[in-house]
C-alpha cells in the first residue's frame, strides 16, 4: 500500500535488536512490527488499536509509524471487520485482525466458520488472514473477559489454531501465521502477556516457528503431559514437584498449534512413557482432550498402560470472584495429583 511512513522504529519495538529481553506481549508486538515492515500487504484491523494502541497495548506506536491506512480502528463489529478482512485477503492483502478480548469473537463466528474457513474449498483461493487476541482466565475478568475460544473453532476444517506459551514461540508462530495462506486463529493468554518469568532474549534475526509442530518442553520417562498455553507453565511447576517429591520424570508436550494437531509428537511421547495426562485451561466437556485421547487410542492404544486422564476447568461459565475462579481453573495441585495417580497405576 502507498502509505507506509518512513519513520524509524519506536524504541519499545526494537528491544530484540538491542539485545534486550522481551515479554510475550512484546514478542507479539515485534512480530507484527517486523511483518508489517517487511510486507506492505500486511495491515491491522481492530477496536482501539490505533491511537490507544489496543486494550493491551500490543500495537502501541503502530499508528504513528505505519499510518491510518495500515492500522485501522474499527467500529464495534467483530463480524463486520473480520468479514471485511476476508474481503481484503481476497484482494491479496494480508490482514491481521485483533479481537479486543477473544470472548468477543462470537459475533464473527458465522463469517469465520462459514465463509473464511471454507473459502479455499469453495474455490475462492487462499485466505491469508490472522485473527488474534487475548484469551484465558485467572484475571478476575468474569464470564466475558476470560474465555478460551479454541473449541469454538477446533471443529472447523480449513482453519488453523495457534496458542503460544513462550515469547519465542509467540513471535515465531505469529510470523509464520501471517505468512501462512490459510486463516489462522491466534490465541494469546493474557496472563502470560507480561509474566516476568517469560521475559526472554530472542534471536536478533528473522525466524519463524512452523505451524503444526509441537514442542517438547522437557523430556521424561514416566508420564506424558500434553498441554498448551498457560497450562504449560503450570505443568512445568507440577513436574518440578513430581521430580523433587516423587522422583517422577514427566515428558511435557506443548502443542503450540492446536489445529492441525501434531499427532506424531503426542504419539511418540506416549509410546515412550505409556501414560498420558492432558491438561487444558478450557472447560472439560468437549475440550481438546477428547480429540487427543481419540487419536492416541487410534494410533497408540497398545502402548497405553493406564487410562488417559485430563485436568481441565470445570464445566461452567468462568466465574468472576477470585475464590470461584480459582476453583474453576485447573491448578498445579490438580496436575500433581492426577500425575501421581497415573504413575502409580
Amino acid at each position, binding site marked *: 500500500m502507498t502509505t507506509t511512513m518512513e519513520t524509524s522504529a519506536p524504541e519499545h519495538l526494537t528491544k530484540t535488536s538491542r539485545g534486550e529481553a522481551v515479554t510475550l506481549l512484546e514478542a507479539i508486538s515485534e512480530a507484527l512490527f517486523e511483518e508489517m515492515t517487511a510486507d506492505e500487504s500486511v495491515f491491522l484491523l481492530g477496536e482501539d488499536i490505533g491511537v490507544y494502541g489496543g486494550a493491551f497495548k500490543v500495537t502501541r506506536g503502530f499508528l504513528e509509524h505505519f499510518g491510518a491506512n495500515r492500522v485501522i480502528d474499527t467500529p464495534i463489529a467483530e463480524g463486520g471487520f473480520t468479514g471485511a478482512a476476508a474481503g481484503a485477503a481476497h484482494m491479496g492483502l494480508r490482514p491481521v485482525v485483533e479481537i479486543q478480548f477473544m470472548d468477543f469473537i462470537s459475533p464473527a463466528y458465522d463469517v469465520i466458520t462459514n465463509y473464511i474457513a471454507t473459502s479455499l474449498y469453495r474455490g475462492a483461493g487462499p485466505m491469508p488472514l490472522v485473527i488474534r487476541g487475548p484469551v484465558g482466565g485467572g484475571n478476575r475478568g468474569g464470564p466475558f473477559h476470560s474465555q478460551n475460544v479454541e473449541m469454538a473453532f477446533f471443529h472447523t476444517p480449513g482453519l488453523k489454531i495457534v496458542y503460544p506459551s513462550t515469547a519465542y514461540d509467540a513471535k515465531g508462530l505469529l510470523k509464520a501465521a501471517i505468512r501462512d495462506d490459510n486463516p489462522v486463529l491466534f490465541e494469546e493468554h493474557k496472563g502470560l502477556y507480561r509474566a516476568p518469568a517469560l521475559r526472554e532474549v530472542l534471536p536478533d534475526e528473522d525466524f519463524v516457528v512452523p505451524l503444526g509442530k509441537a514442542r517438547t518442553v522437557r523430556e521424561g520417562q514416566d508420564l506424558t503431559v500434553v498441554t498448551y498455553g498457560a497450562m504449560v507453565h503450570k505443568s512445568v511447576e507440577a513436574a518440578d514437584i513430581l521430580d523433587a517429591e516423587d522422583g517422577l520424570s514427566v515428558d511435557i508436550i506443548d502443542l503450540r498449534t492446536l489445529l492441525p494437531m501434531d499427532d506424531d509428537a503426542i504419539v511418540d511421547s506416549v509410546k515412550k512413557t505409556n501414560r498420558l495426562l492432558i491438561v487444558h485451561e478450557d472447560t472439560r466437556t468437549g475440550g481438546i482432550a477428547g480429540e487427543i485421547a481419540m487419536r492416541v487410542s487410534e494410533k497408540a492404544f497398545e502402548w497405553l498402560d493406564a487410562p488417559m486422564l485430563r485436568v481441565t476447568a470445570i464445566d461452567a461459565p468462568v466465574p468472576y470472584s*477470585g475464590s470461584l475462579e480459582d476453583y474453576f481453573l485447573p491448578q498445579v495441585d490438580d496436575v500433581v495429583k492426577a500425575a501421581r495417580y497415573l504413575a502409580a497405576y
Partner: protein
Amino acid sequence: MSDRDSYGLGRKELHELYRALRLTRTAEERLEILQKQGHVTGGLYRSLGQEAGAVGAAFALRRRDDGTGDFLAHTVRAAGALFLFGGDLEDFFRQYMAKGSGPTRGREANVHWFDFQKGFVGPVSPLGTMIEIMAGITLSFRLRGEERIGMVFYGDGASSTGAWHEGLNFAAVQRCPMILMVENNQWAFSTPTHKNTRVASFADKGPGYGIGADSVDGTDVLEVFDTVRRAATLVRSGEGTRMVELRYFRRLGHAQHDPQDYVDPALIAEWEKKDPLDQYRRRLINNEWATESELDAIDSEVFEACRVAAEKVIDEPKPHGPDAVDDVYTDVRVAYPWTRSEAPNPAAART
C-alpha cells in the same frame, strides 16, 4: 423549554431526582475509594457527567416491585436507573466486591444483575445483546396484552453491532413496546463516535427502522425526563418501538485504568461546566424548588448511606470455591474435579 418549567413535577419528585443523581455520583465515588483500598474486583466504570440520562429516563417509567411494572436493561453507566428501579445499594457494592452474598453470588460483575420482580435485567458484556433480550421481554408484554414497556440503554459504540440491528429491527417490525436509549458520550473506549457511525445524530437512525426518534441534552435531567415520558406514552399506547439519544460526554476514561490521553482536556473542561448535578442543583435553588440546606441534607444522607453500605459489605464473605459447580443446569450437577474432592478416582479397575 424554560428553565422554570418543572414539567409538572412536585417538590417531592424534584428532590427525588436530585437524590438519584447524587446517589449515582456518590456511590461511584465510594467505589473509587473501595478500589484504592483493594476491595473492588475488576474494572470500575464511571458515569461522571452522564448521570442525568439514566436518572431522567428511568424516572419517566412505571417502577413497581411486584412484577407488573415497566422494565429496565441498564448499563454500567446507567447505575442511576438501576437504583431508581430498586437496585439495592448494598447489592451494588456486593457485586463490585464479588461477594457471595450479592445477587449473582460472585459469578458476575458490577451492575450485571437481575430482578424480574422489580423489573430489571442486567447486561452481559457482548455489546448489543441486550437490545435483543429487551425486544423479547417487551414482545411478551405485547403478546400478553400487558400495559408494560421496556427501556434498554447502550452506548454509541454498541450501535455498530449486528445484535443491535437485529434486535432493534425485530422490535420495530413486531411493534415491541420498547425505548432504545443511546448513551452518546462521544466515545467508545478510545474510539470517537465518528469512527463508529457516519451519522451526526443517532436520531437519524430511527427512520431507517420506521420508528420515531428523539435526541435530548443528556445533562439536563428534567429535559430527559420530559422527552422520555412523552416517548413512553407513545410506546405504551401502541406505537411500538422508539429511540432516544442522550447527548453528553464521557468525562473520565473508559474505565479507571484509562488515562484518556487521547481526549482534548479543553473539551473535558467545557463539559465540566455542563455537569448535570451542578446544573440541576442551581435550577432547584434558582426556582426555589429546594433550599441549599435541603439539598445539603440529601447530600449527607446519601454520603452516609454509601459509606455505611460499603463498610457493611466489605466484611461479608467471599463465595465458597466449590459453589462454582452449582447452577450450570437447573437439574444436572456438573462434576467436581476429582483431583480436588474426596471423590473416587475416575478410572476403576476391571474386576
